[in-house]
């Protein structure tokens, strides 16, 4: 293999493992180098050692973020599914309720929703458990996105599939269970996995109402020792540790289920 082939792939070639790993290292190195140069210009030094003494709090925060995200994933899936169903309802008020919900929560920033929900709705109805409030806010927000993903999945079911199900003699309930749902799941799974990564990142906004999750833990630590840069660099790495595997898994799902031309 000529040396330049390490950097440039042929027109119709597949990227080899060697090319891949070599160039990923280059890309990451460039990224880190740029950041490092910026740091050098400012003449600041980093000391991450203090993080070790906060390891238990950090672990708790990390666990809280995972827990918060997982519970919100389940609740937002439920909300998204209900909303997608309601969207197609023949009872128009239900249908429009679902549409208004999706439009409002997708069309406004989550920070506004966090404040309004927690301080007005939450206070008015006595939701004073911050974790519960956090789950509700995050789920309602993400549910609007998931509703659109599921609705897209429902819309993508081709009429011929339903007609074929009818022709082989399936009852409508069987058609839903054996044909429609599996196809929707296969088609929406990559997007839903991607949405899970968004849930994890968006959960950081709940630190605004002092839900003790990862970001809030870091905020509290940095408030005591003012090591803001170290804290936030480490925070970024921890979020990446969660979202990167999901992103890889999403890629894998996309390649596996790309059965339409």
């Amino acid at each position: 293999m000529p040396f330049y082939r390490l950097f440039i792939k042929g027109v119709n070639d597949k990227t080899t493992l060697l090319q891949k790993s070599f160039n990923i290292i280059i890309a990451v190195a460039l990224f880190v180098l740029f950041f490092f140069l910026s740091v050098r210009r400012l003449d600041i030094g980093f000391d991450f050692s203090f993080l070790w003494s906060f390891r238990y709090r950090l672990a708790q925060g990390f666990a809280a973020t995972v827990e918060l995200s997982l519970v919100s994933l389940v609740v937002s899936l439920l909300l998204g599914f209900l909303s997608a169903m309601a969207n197609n309802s023949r009872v128009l008020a239900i249908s429009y309720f679902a549409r208004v919900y999706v439009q409002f929560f997708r069309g406004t920033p989550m920070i506004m929703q966090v404040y309004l929900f927690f301080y007005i709705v939450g206070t008015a109805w006595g939701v004073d458990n911050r974790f519960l409030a956090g789950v509700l806010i995050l789920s309602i927000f993400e549910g609007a996105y998931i509703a659109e993903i599921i609705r897209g999945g429902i819309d993508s079911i081709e009429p011929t599939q339903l007609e074929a199900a009818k022709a082989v003699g399936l009852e409508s309930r069987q058609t839903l269970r054996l044909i429609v749902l599996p196809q929707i799941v296969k088609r929406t799974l990559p997007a839903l996995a991607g949405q899970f990564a968004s849930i994890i990142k968006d959960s950081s906004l709940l630190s605004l109402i002092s839900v003790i999750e990862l970001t809030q833990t870091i905020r509290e630590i940095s408030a005591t020792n003012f090591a803001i840069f170290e804290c936030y660099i480490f925070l970024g790495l921890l979020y990446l540790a969660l979202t990167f595997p999901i992103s890889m898994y999403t890629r894998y799902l996309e390649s596996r289920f790309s059965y339409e031309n």
Partner: protein
Amino acid sequence: MRIELAGVTKVFTDGKKVLDNICYSEDFDALAIIGPSGGGKSTLLRILGGLISPTTGEVSFDGSKVSFDEKHLIHYRRKIGFVFQAKGLFYHLTARQNVILPLVNVHGYTKTGAATTADNLLDRFGLSADRHKFPHELSGGQQQRVAIARAIAVKPKLLLLDEPTSALDPELTGEVLDMLNELRNDGLNIILVTHEMGFAKKACDKLMFIVNGKLAECGESKNLFTRPRTAELAAFLSKVLEWNI
């Protein structure tokens, strides 16, 4: 098998009359429905298959009338095989699973029994190497052969096919038509909508010619091809056969 159509008419919800008072009764082994596109052939076949109901009119096979209410239709459909023009296989299932699903979930086979039936059929039609492939991994011809295998796996008394080869390349058309001819020789009754005039003439004993929702001509296919009685059929045949060798 005997088919009887009495005044079959279909008006779609937009008011378009696609089938206009079709009356026909005939004994057939293989019946080809031919005619210009948009003339109502596929609609007629869907009515025969119990997928849609006629607006008015009656359909009978071997003297028993088809009852077009959903409760009876679901049982009726189970006794009939239906093959679509394309995309009739379930996308999320492999070739083998496509054949197995109706056997298990509609016809009460055990999983092993259904698997054996499916494997035997796929083997017979030269598809055993492809049985674990998904529809998108199969050629158009293979897809249609799997669709036919799925339709006949349940041992229907009648097989309906809606232009089963119109989406295929010529060499793939041949492999599907060969398969159909073999099934017909085994005694399966077939009704198909087709543009394959060679197949309609040689492999089908009876012919219906439908134009603008009306039955313009019908009879023995060998007679109709050589001596069309109506000007419409003569014109249609001269057009579709113009470039035949």
